[in-house]
């Protein structure tokens, strides 16, 4: 996802001289290095200093440029949070804050590097749109949308590297603010975002031989949330499962339950997320997810599949 973002951004930056990237001491992966070489003035490294990364983006946007702030998600959103809130969101400036390694992607680095509450926090701030694509192709589409828009700030939550393709057989194209059906079914619907949707496709596969037809939906836009789309899902399916590599409060699961209550849905809803705790576990990404009770095996077991 990181390389796809960099390639997409680089291609656009060659055409649009207003596009700049402001990083805080993160290595320029993939095409980001080409951007740095070809347009050194538009690749700005503030060093290990995230408040000025966001502050500079605000000043540059105020003067007509289109800056992207780019670093590890915890340092893109948590460390300079009040700068994101006041400088970007209060002033409603078209700046995209790219958070690399959403969730527990940085699985060997400890909880200091786990962006496990980022979606809840970002969604709470007025004017901030929140997008979490599920795979490289969706990252490309989301990045293009961020590049094209001039309305206000965006938090773009990405994984890191090696995410599998989940969307090449999708029923729908990426459309900002709309649910995207990767697969259409009739009985069970799995809603989720980010690379965690890989588990959703596994669930759908297991369900099929049991005569259960499953939909898989990428809820890539967490804010504004496609509430009408979710209400429709709650009407058209008997059972809804929500998957998110995020804290259990303030995310998609809570939103789906609220929409269900407001629309008097009788649908059965089961939510899976990370735990409300900092875990002291170091290993592969899958091992960290398992330590949070968010492994495919644990989810399938709880779903009785």
């Amino acid at each position, binding site marked *: 996802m990181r390389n796809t973002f960099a390639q997409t951004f680089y291609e656009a930056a060659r055409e649009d001289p207003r596009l700049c990237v402001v990083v805080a001491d993160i290595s320029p992966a993939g095409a980001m290095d080409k951007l740095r070489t070809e347009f050194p003035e538009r690749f700005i490294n503030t060093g290990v200093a995230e408040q000025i990364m966001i502050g500079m983006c605000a*000043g540059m946007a105020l003067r007509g440029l289109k800056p992207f702030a780019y670093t590890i998600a915890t340092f893109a959103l948590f460390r300079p949070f009040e700068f994101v809130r006041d400088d970007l969101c209060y002033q409603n400036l078209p700046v995209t804050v790219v958070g690399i390694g959403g969730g527990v992607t940085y699985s060997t680095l400890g909880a200091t590097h786990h962006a496990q509450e980022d979606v809840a926090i970002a969604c709470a701030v007025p004017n901030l749109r929140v997008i979490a694509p599920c795979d490289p192709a969706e990252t490309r589409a989301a990045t293009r949308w961020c590049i094209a828009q001039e309305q206000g700030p965006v938090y773009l939550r990405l994984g890191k590297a090696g995410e599998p393709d989940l969307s090449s057989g999708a029923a729908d194209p990426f459309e900002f603010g709309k649910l995207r059906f990767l697969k259409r079914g009739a009985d069970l619907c799995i809603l989720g975002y980010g690379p965690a949707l890989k588990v959703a496709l596994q669930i759908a596969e297991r369900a099929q031989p049991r005569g259960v037809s499953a939909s898989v939906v990428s809820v890539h836009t967490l804010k504004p949330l496609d509430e009408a789309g979710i209400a429709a899902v709650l009407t058209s399916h008997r059972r809804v499962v929500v998957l998110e590599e995020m804290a259990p409060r303030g995310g998609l699961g809570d939103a789906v339950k609220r929409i269900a209550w407001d629309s008097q849905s009788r649908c059965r809803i089961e939510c899976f997320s990370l735990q409300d705790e900092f875990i002291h576990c170091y290993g592969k990404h899958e091992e960290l997810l398992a330590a949070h009770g968010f492994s495919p095996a644990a989810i399938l077991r709880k779903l009785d599949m």
Partner: protein
Amino acid sequence: MAKTWQAPLAAFDAAAARARCLGYRRRILDISQRVGALHAAPAFSCMEMADVIYHGLMRRGNPTEFHDLFLMSKGHGCMTQYVILEELGILASAELERYCTAEGILGAHPDRGNPGIEASTGSLGHGLGIAVGMAYAERLKRSDRQVYVMLSDGELQEGSSWEAAMMAGNLRLDNLNLFLDLNDFSGLERMSETHTAFYPVREKFEAFGWEALAVNGHDAQAVHAAAAARRGQRPFALIGKTVKGRGVAFMENVPIWHYRSPNKEEYAIAIRDLAEVSS
């Protein structure tokens, strides 16, 4: 790199500045009688420097806006900015009459979108970073715009201010001009007594690659001369030694006036004693 721009030395009339600042102080005291609080003392300490920026340094693009850019990073000093913008005809007097009322547009911190306001400040330690981004953008656009930003000494306690100062030095932003209102008081107390490591200030900026000069911040002529004589090629910090509450004797160096408005009797004394300030 050549010096981008130099203010005309002879063009600044310090006597006229003193008269304007007397008028600004009176206007602020008048408005203070309609609201519970308006940060009079921190507005008074940065007054002469703000007047020099608007009247002696920034170039006007058209009747309603300046070519150069100004940010009141110490957002609580915005009353000074409001009365200057009013005097310049950019901000309507009717809006100052509606200050801090639900019918108006002006609050106790600057709000972007209001006439003459480039950025929303108020939370301290934000303005310099935004100014660095603005100055960098103007450089990228090959524009000759200068960026002026007014900071308080209190907000230099914010680490973010030093992140911004360091980055401005790294980028050698010669179109960035910082004016520091060194009135020695944060909200609570006298910094030279309680936060002694904050001093010296000028040397800190110099160590970060800035050109820095210290002058009496209430001496408009000296402020203008120092800013106009900057050498260029580096970001510039003018450290104005000021007095919090300057111009109203009972407010000077008394922390309560950071926020409080004078009552009727205090207002009468302040108006009676108001005089031109030259140092």
